[in-house]
């Protein structure tokens, strides 16, 4: 297991390395970095001086290596908006984003597992039709619009919940519902189809023939096997959910990484943008690693070797 963990962590290295290459290329595409540093009326001599001082006159590969060394130390440069190092600014917002992501996932699971399970067991019933129709509709609705509609109903119209912010404990309900429901639609769909496949397996009949209670068969033998494709999609959806959190954080003024990233993009605070993008990518890669380990816990047939 330890060797597998080590090899998986090693596999992340090329991806992360390429990410830094892509980010470096993007930054250079955005224009001459010296022009951002020099004041507008700088003379050509002054510009040349700045270029030499920051090493922008060196060949590109050399500049890239310098930047890579800095990034590895966690140094993404200074935010010109906050006049402080970029990475701590991003890390400060990480807990709020993770909190929202975790609660949203919980909401998604609480909706998707019963919905997917029941619609598979009662296939072609009105309940099944309801679940499949809702999940198709959910696929077609932009999640930020669902958020706006939830605000309209629960905050403006009924006045039960706060409109936005993160001041009260109830503040998380609406953003988590927004993100959770949009993920729940695809999770319910995948659970339904994998459950339908599992139901037809022979071990299900055997379990029934043994005289097990119907629910013991469905939960103990059915759900556990159906969860494997479900977990795969769950991992993919985690990336999607983190992306969606940017827009949901904006709709609900949730003070997380996504909102910081968005506002930094609008004023072109590039060091914060780069630090934020790297952080999001790291969180997604970390989640995928976690999902891999969930497989072994669920299915003893899946064993990892280091080869």
């Amino acid at each position, binding site marked *: 297991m330890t060797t597998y963990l080590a090899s998986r962590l090693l596999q992340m290295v*090329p*991806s992360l390395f*390429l*990410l830094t290459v*892509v*980010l470096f290329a*993007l*930054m250079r*595409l*955005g224009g001459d970095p010296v022009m951002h540093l020099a004041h507008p009326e700088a003379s050509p001599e002054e510009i040349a001086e700045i270029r030499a001082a920051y090493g922008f006159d060196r060949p590109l590969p050399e500049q890239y290596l310098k930047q890579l060394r800095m990034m590895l130390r966690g140094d993404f440069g200074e935010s010109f908006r906050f006049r402080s190092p970029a990475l701590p600014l991003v890390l400060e917002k990480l807990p709020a984003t993770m909190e929202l992501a975790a609660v949203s996932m919980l909401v998604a699971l609480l909706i998707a597992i019963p919905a997917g399970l029941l619609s598979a067991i009662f296939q072609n019933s009105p309940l099944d039709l309801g679940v499949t129709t809702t999940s*198709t*509709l959910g*696929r*077609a*609705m*932009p999640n*930020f*619009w669902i958020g*706006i*509609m939830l*605000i*309209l109903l629960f905050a*403006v119209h009924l006045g039960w919940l706060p409109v936005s912010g993160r001041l009260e404990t109830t503040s998380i309900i609406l953003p988590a519902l927004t993100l959770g429901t949009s993920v729940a639609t695809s999770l319910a*769909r*995948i659970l339904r*189809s994998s459950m339908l496949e599992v139901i037809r397996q022979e071990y299900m009949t055997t379990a029934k023939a043994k005289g097990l209670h119907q629910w013991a068969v469905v939960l103990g033998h059915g759900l556990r096997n159906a969860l494997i494709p479900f977990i795969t999609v769950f991992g993919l959806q985690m*990336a*999607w959910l*983190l*992306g*969606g959190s*940017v*827009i949901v954080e*904006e*709709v609900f003024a949730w003070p997380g990484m996504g909102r910081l*990233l*968005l506002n*930094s*993009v*609008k004023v*072109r605070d*590039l060091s914060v*943008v*780069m630090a*934020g*993008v790297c952080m*999001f*990518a790291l969180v*997604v*890669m970390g989640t*995928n690693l976690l999902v891999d380990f969930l497989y072994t816990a669920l299915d003893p047939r899946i064993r990892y070797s280091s080869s």
Partner: protein
Amino acid sequence: MTASGPQVLGTESTVPEPRKYRYRWLWRLRHSPTGMLGAVIVVGVVLVVLLGTAIAPHDPELIDLKQRLVPPVWAEGGSVGHVLGTDQLGRDVLSRIILGTRVSLLVGIAGVALAMLTGVFLGVTTGFWGGWWDGLVSRFLDTFLSIPFIILALAVIGVLGVKGGNNMLRLILVLGLANWVIFTRVVRGEVLAVKERDYVEAARAIGQRSWMIMLRYILPNVTASIIVLGALQISTVIIAEASLSFLGLGVQPPTITWGIMLADGRDHLATSWWLATFPGIAITITVLGFILWGDWLRDVLDPRLRE
């Protein structure tokens, strides 16, 4: 079997056969209510785009401050002149939704076309040649997969800047850049299977150049998957365009888009519910149309793509 014309597998006995082969897709469409609904919506949306100003009851940009925030016709204080009400500047909401269809569809189709061209090129060449080229592109693929779409879009837009330049073109570029991955993955997988076929072997044996083999023998055999994927991706890209425009990073006013209308509507949520409601419904219906149509195309052309 006395009926004329070719048979559809599995339907021999129960369903009467279509009279002519070339109308078979129409016959199949009639037997799929959801596919039919999707096709009707897609045709309707295209008609709305083509007719545009001709069917809009008002000039969508006409500001009439005496008619500000008029509610829809059925609500109290509504007027027959503005069926879906007016916005904060007295502009007709229905007319703006009709004109907003243009940007959504244009950006959706152009974004998918760009992603398709890039993705198919990379998918065919990596699948056919393999080797270092395949390895390199696959690493990039992994990296892109670990960055959620909206984060990637934020990074690119952050570097290119929000203001200035042709923002429609920039948006299409960003959407293309974010969506090539899925085309490459699917096409590469298909090519790996197709290139083992005998006719490819035969083409090689008679000394065809590899470019010719790819164009004449491989590409036509993966077209079905490409079309299906393209149809389904349009729905994703339309939502992405609305999201970015909503965040203020996509198309900029005065161009009318559903995303911008929703952003305006959010600011008047407490007083004017209709401003944020109707553009969202327009997005949902349009996206639903492409999803249902795409699902149907998949079932007809390429059932293997089914989840």
